[in-house]
């Protein structure tokens, strides 16, 4: 049964969950959402488990028609969502009535919006994940971005899905929203030293932190190519390929950095100057071509401590939402 029809496709909208883990040893790309916090909170707001498949909407959003009543939540970057022409609040649980149309407009803040529906988007799992990997043509909806006339269905309702749905009937919009501001930084990205950090020239190590790097238009879910003061190794050496991760910053032969993201290849052979702290992945996800980045060096201990703080905050939000609907 069709529950949602795509009326207009937008720029780049895909179904994603937290990613396809366990197959990197087979060379399979992880994929998954870029902004895991927006993803998790959107899922909490509708009563899903945190790995439920959602829509990741980039810069220019689609137009979507709902064929059933459903609870939705939109988190992450502000792409001016509207419902039948009226602005739609973000970071809130919202009850959508049958036949309403959701549209997106100008990109006001950030770059990526996350739309969750109660029950989650239902797509066939490939290697245990719903995530779309467009280059590999698998996962999500036929391994591609959403297109006009795509028909989507949602998964079955949990008890919590139902409770939220019933509580919202009558009011349609919750009278509270999640305080999210402290999750995003506009420019500053904290990093740790990469594997080959010490092998770069002194001046390169200084410049990497001294100057800003601009995200170029050659950037996508695989990685952001940056442009700025070129960086160089003390001496050229042939590197053996080894695994790379989300947030690995490698320096290509022309001296420019690439920050690897969700659709990165599993292994790489470029020298790695730094690794982005996980706590700053959402900030990174909400940046777009033209934005400038300041890198700041922190220790692993600090990065892990910050991540645990963030995790506690997310758990608090999750519990808070459950209490409101208990």
């Amino acid at each position: 049964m069709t529950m949602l029809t795509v009326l207009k496709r937008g720029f780049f909208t895909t179904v994603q969950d937290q990613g396809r883990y366990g197959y990197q040893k087979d060379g399979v790309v992880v994929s998954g959402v870029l902004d895991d916090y927006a993803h998790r909170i959107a899922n909490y707001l509708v009563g899903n488990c945190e790995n439920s498949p959602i829509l990741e909407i980039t810069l220019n959003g689609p137009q979507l028609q709902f064929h059933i009543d459903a609870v939705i939540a939109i988190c992450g970057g502000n792409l001016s969502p509207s419902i039948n022409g009226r602005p739609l609040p973000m970071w809130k649980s919202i009850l959508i009535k049958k036949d309403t149309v959701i549209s997106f407009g100008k990109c006001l803040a950030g770059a990526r919006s996350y739309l969750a529906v109660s029950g989650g988007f239902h797509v066939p799992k490939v290697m245990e994940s719903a995530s779309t990997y467009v280059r590999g043509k698998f996962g999500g909806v036929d391994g591609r971005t959403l297109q006009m006339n795509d028909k989507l269905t949602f998964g079955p309702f949990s008890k919590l899905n139902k409770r939220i749905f019933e509580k919202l009937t009558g009011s349609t919009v919750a009278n509270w929203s999640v305080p999210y501001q402290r999750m995003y930084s506009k420019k500053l990205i904290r990093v740790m030293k990469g594997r080959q950090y010490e092998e770069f020239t002194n001046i390169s190590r200084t410049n990497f932190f001294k100057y800003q790097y601009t995200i170029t238009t050659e950037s996508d879910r695989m990685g952001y190519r940056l442009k700025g003061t070129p960086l160089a190794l003390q001496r050229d050496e042939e590197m053996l390929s080894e695994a790379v991760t989300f947030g690995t910053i490698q320096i290509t032969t022309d001296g420019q950095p690439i920050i690897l993201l969700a659709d990165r290849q599993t292994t790489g052979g470029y020298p790695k100057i730094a690794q982005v702290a996980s706590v700053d992945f959402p900030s990174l996800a909400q940046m777009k071509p033209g934005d400038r980045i300041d890198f700041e060096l922190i220790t692993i201990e600090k990065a892990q401590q910050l991540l645990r703080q963030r995790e506690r905050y997310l758990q608090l939000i999750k519990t808070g939402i459950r209490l409101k609907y208990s």
Partner: protein
Amino acid sequence: MNFQLYPMGDHALLLEFGKVIDPKTHQQIQKITNVLEHSPPSWMVEYIPAFTTITIIYKPTEILYKEACLELNKIVLNMEEHNAINQHIVTIPVCYGDEFGPDLEFVADVNSLTKKEVINIHANGNYLVYMIGFSPGFPYIGGMSEKIAAPRKKSPRLNIAAGSVGIAGKQTGIYSIDSPGGWQIIGRTPVRLFQIDKQKPAFLKAGDKIKFIPISRNEYYEWVN
């Protein structure tokens, strides 16, 4: 067993067993991946073996870097010596030359060999899969004779069919999916190296030994059908 631990940011760490590609280093990696595969630590998300390293992805919300290092040291210390390692020999049929191997002649010419000699040398090598990477199911294979080494193409082809067997420098490889590439293509195998709908999507894994068996064009098409 000698190895060093390095952090890879705040959610991965890396065990390094050496700086050069050799079968001994590879065996040590195989031993540990065996343990990680059959009794994975609860805090591990997954592991990724490479030429001289294993990278371990973990959840920093469950374990800190220093704790994970201690745990891994324990795992390596407690590893049983007789720990069986993968001795799997995989045969891969290859139809060499003609439309499946447009660069066979080039490889023969740069090495002053006949096409037949290139096929013989390639098919009689002892090959080892060091790692899977670059693209889904793509094996990095060691063991090719330098007698058939050939430089990469100056400009890469836009599309190389899955199953194409190629040579780049002193390496040989098999394209696991259709993709652009600059390797000199000498043949094609009907075996699919990567199938998303299989329970084990990758046909090969690190540690496999490979034997190439030359087949005719008819045998190739019989295999495909």
